[in-house]
């Protein structure tokens, strides 16, 4: 696991252990800030507009949240716990990701074929790229050169050159790769493989990014939402199954099916041995030990947590404390 330094180069330092989770609660229109060591909610930030997608700045000091009903994204300053600005996107902003190299924010418009590039400092839309229909999850390669989208209505992954380099096409066309039915979440292992959770076909497609091809399809539970990747395993949230399906990254064979709660959705690995998953119907964030595959903690969050994206980080607002 790598973190980007401020200069834009990628430092060969291990990422520190995440201390907090930022959970988007779509029903209550809030973000819950959870202390992961104690599994308690420290603070709740109001974000009107049915927040769903979540991503962090490379320095982890800002949180970006999509608000599809407000047709914009909210930029939250994690030092103060306040919404610093809202940036209009139009349509239905849902998936969101950040370039680890330059901090540009990529937003998927659920109602169209748009991937929107935003400069969070100026609030300007700096580019728009055409991808498949209803782009959902987004992943950015570690070099910041390519954005990958899971296009839910096209059953494709789009790979688009977002580098703006002098050598690249000024109006790049996405490469489209057919995957399973209704891909939603997409997660990268470094720059090598992308894993999509396919809601319609109850499986995960594994895309070789360099070859632009699907190399394997792994059956999981019902209506998978997203995939978290540890060093050796994939953890897939099965919305209708109420489970997390775990499979081995070397063999693609199923290791376990872990009951976690009703409608598990956003899921992330902390880099050190824990997986966190938001259970939408239960209003909980659940912790799984990635080695023993046991549930080791649970905390109540707001109503309808989705936590769709990258939601583990290092900072909490000054003065936030357990209530």
């Amino acid at each position: 696991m790598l973190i980007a330094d401020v200069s834009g180069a990628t430092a060969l330092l291990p990422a520190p252990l995440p201390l907090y989770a930022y959970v988007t609660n779509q029903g209550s229109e809030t973000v819950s800030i959870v202390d992961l060591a104690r599994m308690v909610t420290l603070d709740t930030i109001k974000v009107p507009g049915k927040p769903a997608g979540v991503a962090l700045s490379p320095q982890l000091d800002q949180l970006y949240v999509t608000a599809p009903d407000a047709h914009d994204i909210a930029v939250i300053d994690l030092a103060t716990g306040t919404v610093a600005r809202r940036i209009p996107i139009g349509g239905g902003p849902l998936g969101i990701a950040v370039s680890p190299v330059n901090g540009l924010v990529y937003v998927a418009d659920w109602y169209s074929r748009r991937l929107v590039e935003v400069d969070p400092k100026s609030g300007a839309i700096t580019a728009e790229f055409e991808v498949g229909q209803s782009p959902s999850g987004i992943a950015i390669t570690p070099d910041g050169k390519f954005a990958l989208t899971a296009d839910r209505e096209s059953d494709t992954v789009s790979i688009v050159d977002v580098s703006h380099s002098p050598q690249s096409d000024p109006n790049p066309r996405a490469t489209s790769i057919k995957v399973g039915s209704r891909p939603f979440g997409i997660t990268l292992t470094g720059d090598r493989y992308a894993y999509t959770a396919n809601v319609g076909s109850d499986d995960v497609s594994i895309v070789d990014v360099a070859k632009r091809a699907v190399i394997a399809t792994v059956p999981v539970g019902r209506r998978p939402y997203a995939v978290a990747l540890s060093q050796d395993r994939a953890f897939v949230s099965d919305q209708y199954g109420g489970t997390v399906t775990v499979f081995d990254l070397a063999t693609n064979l199923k290791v376990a099916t872990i009951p976690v709660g009703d409608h598990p959705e956003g899921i992330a690995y902390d880099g050190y041995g824990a997986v966190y998953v938001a259970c939408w119907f239960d209003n909980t964030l659940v912790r799984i030990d990635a080695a023993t595959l046991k549930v080791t903690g649970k905390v109540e969050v707001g109503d309808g947590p989705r936590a769709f994206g990258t939601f583990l980080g290092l900072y909490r607002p000054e003065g936030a404390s357990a209530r």
Partner: protein
Amino acid sequence: MLRTTLAALALVAALPFSALAHGPSRQKVVQSIEINAPADKVWAAMGNFQDMSWHPAIEKTAGTGDNGAGAKRTLTLKGGGTIEEALTSYNAEGKSYAYEITTVDVKTLPVSNYSSSIKVTGDAAKSTVEWKGAFYRGFVNNDPPPELNDEAAVKAVTGVYKAGLDALKAKLEAGG
């Protein structure tokens, strides 16, 4: 780049969405009721997937597959309209089952991607029935009309659950 992209967007805006398409925010409804009747008796009254006569809005239940894997039913509503549903899990011992709507006109019920479960808990004297639903609004695109928005979906499903549970309680407590 903006100009060509927007022109392309105008073209695709007319494309139909799939049956699995939906709005951005899933909704939830949970309704429960206490019934002064043994849990076994309550389950006997409403636990058969192929007989939804306990619900006052249902005229007829016709289906296949009993309570087994892959079972289906078509509910015909009093006053018109049908809802096609599929059983997704059935647990007689745990007195619960789960199902999904496979086909419904939004004029009949303004929802999409609807899944639900119903469960009885309790003892020889008293029971609780809990009915849970997860679904999206009937309108799959942006800016829904009022009759197909999130609130309309929640209101409709809440009404269905409440009417059913109230009727079940009335029937069982009357000794029916």
